[in-house]
């Protein structure tokens, strides 16, 4: 019953669009980053659904990459550079 997958896909797309509004609206940088995280997680779900719907098993690997790299952007976002000195 691919209809179920399609319904889930549509629901996740809706969730992604809601997150998109927050990304566009802000107001704080933290809000946008948070919404980008939501888009990433939603994207993971959508990729897995697409992987089954389109018969592309490789998309599961894409989802795995997205899941692993989700934290990198957040870490770069909040990282504090040393003011002076060497590293």
């Amino acid at each position, binding site marked *: 019953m*691919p209809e179920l997958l*399609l319904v889930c*896909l*549509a629901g996740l*797309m809706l969730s*992604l*669009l809601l997150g*998109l509004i927050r*990304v*566009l609206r*802000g107001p704080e*940088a933290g809000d*946008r*980053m948070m*919404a*980008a995280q939501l*888009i*990433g997680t939603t*994207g993971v779900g*959508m*990729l897995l659904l*697409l*992987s089954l*719907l*389109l*018969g*592309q*098993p*490789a*998309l599961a*690997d*894409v989802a*795995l*990459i*997205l899941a*692993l*790299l989700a*934290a*990198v*952007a957040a*870490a*770069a*976002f909040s*990282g*504090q*550079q*040393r*003011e*002076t*000195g*060497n*590293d």
Partner: protein
Amino acid sequence: MNATNMLFLDILLVIALLSLAWATLTATDARRSVILFIAFGLVLTLAWARLLAPDVALAEAAIGAGLSGALLLAAVQHHPRRALSSERQNTGKLANEKQNDSNPADLKSSVAIRWTLTLFCIALAFVLIWALLQALSSETSDTLAQSVSANLANSGVSNPVTAVLLNFRAYDTLLELAVLLTAVLGIFALSEQRTGYLPAGPVFNGLVSWLVPALILMAGYLLWVGAHAPGGAFQAGATLAAAGVILRLAGKRNIGLPVSKSYLNIILVIGSGLFLLVGLTMLALGRPFLDYPPAMAGYLILLIETAAMISIAATLILAFLGGRPRNREDRSC
């Protein structure tokens, strides 16, 4: 699954991409623009997946959504907003457009230039759409795709994308690796590397302790899977580089790169070097440049890809450092 069922998805993806692209371009604040760009990369990954291009989706997920976001965020942090005013006097740094904004004449001309460019881009987009429609309606049979699948058996791998990248058009990939090397040498030419990050707290350290090994494993998996499914040296290199970036962000000093400059040079050069060496060995054996014997092709491609992954990862990490490594004496602290 037939195409009409997914039409809603395509339309919404296009809307999301366009609005994110516009917001990224028009954002006044650099950090905001970067975050919007990260979101754009995420949605673009979905678009590539929907276009049945998992190889590109993989690269976009690793490089577009993950690494370049981190790279740009680090660059923005290096030039925070409050530092801009002091930088107007500081002539030692790369100057950006903002410096000119104080002059009203320049401002007017920059607005004019912006509008001209916008109109130019819109015209360009229409020309492209028109010509693409013409091209797609001309119904040329894709002879290249046919000859790729006809010769796939002799390429040593079963993933057509890898066969094109590392066998049929291996020369392009060799030159692309040279482009990456040039990019990193160009970064070295500009400045010394940026100062590092403050040591991470316990939560971040916990993240690092499992994420770095997981990323390294993932890189190995992508490298291996590239022979028969989407994956390969570029995606694997980007994943490996993400491990380095995370270590750097956590305040670790050497981020897995060797301290000695000569070792660093070796890992920078090994990708293009080994590739070239394999090509020239074929020449010595009396075959054309980069003409692998079919029986050996699979192994040679894996060897080249492994070396390429190392160089690509090192290149991306060094790009993240934003300059040439400091001398050993400077590292004493």
